[in-house]
C-alpha cells in the first residue's frame, strides 16, 4: 500500500508542477519563462525516474545506466553548443 501511496503523491506533485509551468507561461517573464520551464521539466523527469522507474528502490547498476545516459547526452550538447557558440 505504501508504494501505491507514494505513486499517487508523485502524480499529484507532477500535476502541480504542470500547473505551475502552464500558469507562469501565460506571463512574459523573458528568460524567466525558459528557466522555469526547463527547471520544472527536469524536476518532473526526476520524479518519474526516481519513483515511477524505481531508480531509488533498485540496484546501483541501474542508477549508473541512467546517469551514463545523461552523461552521453551532456557530451553531445556541450560539444555541439561549444561549436555553434564559437563560429
Amino acid at each position, binding site marked *: 500500500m505504501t508504494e501505491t501511496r507514494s505513486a499517487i503523491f508523485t502524480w499529484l506533485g*507532477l500535476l502541480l508542477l504542470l500547473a505551475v509551468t502552464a500558469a507562469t507561461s501565460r506571463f512574459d517573464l523573458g528568460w524567466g519563462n525558459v528557466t522555469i520551464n526547463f527547471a520544472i521539466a527536469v524536476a518532473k523527469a526526476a520524479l518519474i525516474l526516481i519513483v*515511477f522507474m524505481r531508480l531509488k528502490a533498485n540496484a546501483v*547498476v541501474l542508477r549508473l545506466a541512467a546517469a551514463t545516459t545523461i552523461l552521453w547526452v551532456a557530451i553531445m550538447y556541450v560539444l555541439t553548443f561549444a561549436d555553434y557558440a564559437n563560429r
Partner: protein
Amino acid sequence: MANATESIAFDTAARERQADRLGMWVFIASEALLFAAVILAYLVVRTHHGAAFAAGSKELSFGLGTTNTAVLLTSSLAMAIAETKVDERNGLRASRLLLAIAAGLGALFLAIKFAEYHDEYARGLVPLFGWPFTYGGADQRGVALFFDFYFAMTALHALHLVLGIVTIAGIALLWDRSGTATRRRRTTAVALYWHFVDVVWVFLYPLLYLINR
C-alpha cells in the same frame, strides 16, 4: 514458484528481473540519445529563428497540449500502480486492469494529438507532403521550420506511444497463458518503457507549446 526463473542463467527470479531491468535501461539509453539528438537539432535551429519559433508555438493549442500532458502523467500513475500490484499475491487482476487503463489513456492522448493535427491541417500549418502552408504572419520560412520540428518530434513520440499500446495489448492477450513470474517480468519491462515515453513528452511540452506564451 517465487524462485522460478525463465532462463537457466539465473539463480533466482529476483536476479533475473534485475538483469531484465538493466537490459531495458540500456535500450532506454539508446532511445534517449535518439530523442536527445532531435531535440538538439531543434534547439540549434531555434537559436537562429527565435522569433519565428515563438510565433509558431502560439499557433499550437495550449489547452490541448496541457491536457495531453496531464493525460500522459496519469497513464504513468496507472502503470506505476500496475507494477506494484503485479508483485502482490492478490494483485494480478488489478494489475491487468491498470495496464488496460494506462493503454486507454495512451489512446486518449493519441486521439487528442490527432485532433490537433487535423486542426493544424485545416488551418494550413502542415509544411509536409507538398500541402499548402498558408501561415500569414512574418518570417513564413522560419515558422515552417518550427512546424517541421513540431511534426517530426510529436510524430516520433506518438509512434513510441503506439508501440507501447501494442505491447500492452500483447501482454494482456497472453496474460492468461503466462505464469506469474512471466507476467511480472513483462509488466516491469513495459512499465519502464512507458515511463520513458512520458519523460520524453515532459520535455517536448515546454519546448513546443510554451515558447513566450
